[in-house]
């Protein structure tokens, strides 16, 4: 069930009422929400519930084994990685491997046919697998006590607002909330409703509207340079509105039920470097990669032994962090999908990340402190982001290369008009996002604790609700990140 289906509003209304009616009995309340989360996940395909229960049981048991059998800690941690990543890889890459093997055999002249079995990736699997793996690793690092209550643990993994596309919860943040009695707080509920409405607005009004135009331009067999870059700008706005819209809905719904989830976006297009970008974009995933891939790669004696030029006795800090960045971004690209553009996209971010870090290290501190360089760096980084989004959006590398090689002066007047139209759509899509930024930084702090707060906020909600209802289409696009 998607957050923007009308059925979800009815579902949420029922769940919200029963949930708060049970507030006096935390364990009953948790059991209820765990059951509701299973029903939510199994809404379209019942067998998905089995997969979620498998992941939950596996990681619950492995967490206990890691803690209670310290002598075999490495064995259980290794098993957790193999089983979690094995399950994820099976669903994510089965079709790719099958098609690749059949293609290779046919090239060699063998008669080979793919089986009729096509595996589809269960929505949310990536997200709750990472969520559960992080728990077991944290227990293994002695940063967290293994939990013994299976119902609390099921709710921790399966809590429905964050189940399908995150934010990827971390045990130290979410488990204590699951284990503590909740008290109804009207102000928090109101804030949750506002956040969810804003998220729905971003998805329905901005992202889905942008998607219609972006898709038309991307479907063009021979777009001009101006059309390509206008479409890339459109997609850049669309994907932010789509994914941050989803995140805000998830956080808003969770807040209505008394849970605080991680903020996943912090104005990523205002980043002033690639490292800054990853601190602002899909934060729950990039911090996950930082803690469980990047840092272990920096401090791994195994990598120091095997992934180092034999003539070097010890790698410099720069070489170690560059190696870790390439490993991390390669895996991030692989996680996004098996098409070549995702690997190129990961490599692209590794290269620009390394280059920016290298340049930053060369610039004297005195020059860096001389003035605020953000007005120069932010637009420069945005151009890098635009290129990244182009790679991310287009699966055909041949098409991508031909686009990058196009002349900026190749457009006919008609094509320029199309690109101009797309830029106007972009401006219309970006305007509410910029207004929201101004609201957040300038208006909201001044309204706080004044009599204006309630009427202004309520009016903003009403406008958002009317806009959502006006723009809503029953054939609403799926969220971009559901495919991952």
């Amino acid at each position: 069930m998607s957050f923007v289906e009308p059925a979800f509003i009815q579902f949420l209304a029922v769940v919200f009422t029963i949930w708060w009616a049970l507030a006096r009995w935390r364990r009953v309340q948790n059991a209820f929400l765990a059951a509701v989360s299973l029903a939510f996940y199994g809404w379209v395909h019942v067998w998905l519930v089995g997969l979620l229960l498998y992941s939950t049981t596996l990681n619950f048991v492995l967490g206990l084994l890691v803690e209670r059998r310290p002598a075999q800690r490495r064995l259980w941690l290794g098993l957790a990685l193999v089983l979690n990543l094995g399950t994820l890889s099976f669903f994510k890459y089965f079709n790719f491997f099958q098609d690749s093997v059949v293609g290779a055999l046919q090239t060699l002249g063998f008669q080979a046919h793919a089986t009729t079995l096509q595996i589809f990736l269960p929505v949310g699997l990536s997200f709750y697998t990472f969520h559960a793996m992080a728990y077991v690793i944290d227990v293994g690092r002695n940063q967290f006590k293994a939990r013994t209550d299976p119902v609390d643990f099921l709710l921790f993994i399966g809590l429905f607002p964050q189940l399908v596309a995150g934010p990827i919860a971390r045990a130290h943040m979410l488990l204590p909330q699951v284990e503590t009695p909740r008290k109804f707080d009207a102000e928090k509920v109101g804030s949750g409703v506002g956040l969810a409405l804003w998220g729905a607005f971003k998805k329905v009004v901005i992202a889905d509207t942008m998607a219609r135009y972006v898709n038309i331009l991307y479907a063009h067999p021979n777009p001009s340079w101006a059309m390509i870059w206008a479409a890339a700008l459109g997609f850049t706005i669309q994907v932010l509105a789509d994914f941050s819209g989803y995140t805000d809905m998830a956080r808003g719904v969770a807040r209505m039920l008394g849970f605080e989830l991680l903020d996943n976006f912090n104005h990523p297009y205002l980043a002033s470097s690639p490292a800054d970008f990853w601190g602002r974009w899909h934060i729950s995933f990039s911090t996950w990669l930082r803690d469980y891939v990047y840092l272990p790669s920096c401090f791994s004696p195994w990598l120091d032994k095997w992934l180092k030029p034999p003539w070097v006795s010890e790698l410099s800090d720069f070489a170690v962090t560059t190696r870790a960045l390439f490993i991390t971004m390669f895996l991030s690209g692989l996680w996004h999908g098996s098409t070549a553009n995702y690997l190129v996209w990961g490599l692209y971010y590794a290269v620009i990340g390394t280059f920016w870090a290298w340049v930053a290290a060369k610039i004297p501190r005195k020059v860096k402190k001389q003035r605020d360089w953000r007005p120069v760096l932010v637009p420069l980084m945005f151009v890098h982001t635009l290129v990244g989004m182009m790679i991310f959006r287009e699966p055909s590398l041949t098409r991508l290369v031909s686009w990058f090689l196009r002349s900026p002066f190749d457009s006919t007047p008609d094509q320029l008009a199309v690109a101009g139209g797309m830029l106007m759509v972009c401006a219309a899509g970006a305007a509410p996002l910029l207004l929201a930024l101004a609201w957040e930084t300038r208006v909201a702090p001044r309204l706080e604790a004044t009599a204006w707060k309630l009427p202004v906020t309520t009016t903003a909600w009403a406008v958002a609700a009317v806009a959502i209802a006006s723009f809503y289409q029953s054939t609403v696009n799926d969220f971009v990140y559901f495919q991952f």
Partner: protein
Amino acid sequence: MSATLDKLTTVFHDVFEDDDIVLTRETTAADIAGWDSLRNVMLMRKVGRTFGFPIDTSEVTGLKNVGALVDMIDRKKGA
């Protein structure tokens, strides 16, 4: 100020190229400009080299503030 905190301050000056940094046990990443993931790795590797022991990932991710880092160093030096 403990001898460890003293020595650690020199490491911070070196890694962050800023001799004005004053460390207390309560100092966190939010208090020092430029303390991002990259700098954190450089810092921890320098800590390992300066105090003469290897650093493990779990030690890096588990630290809450400079006080926790000082305690970790003292523990490893004593081990």
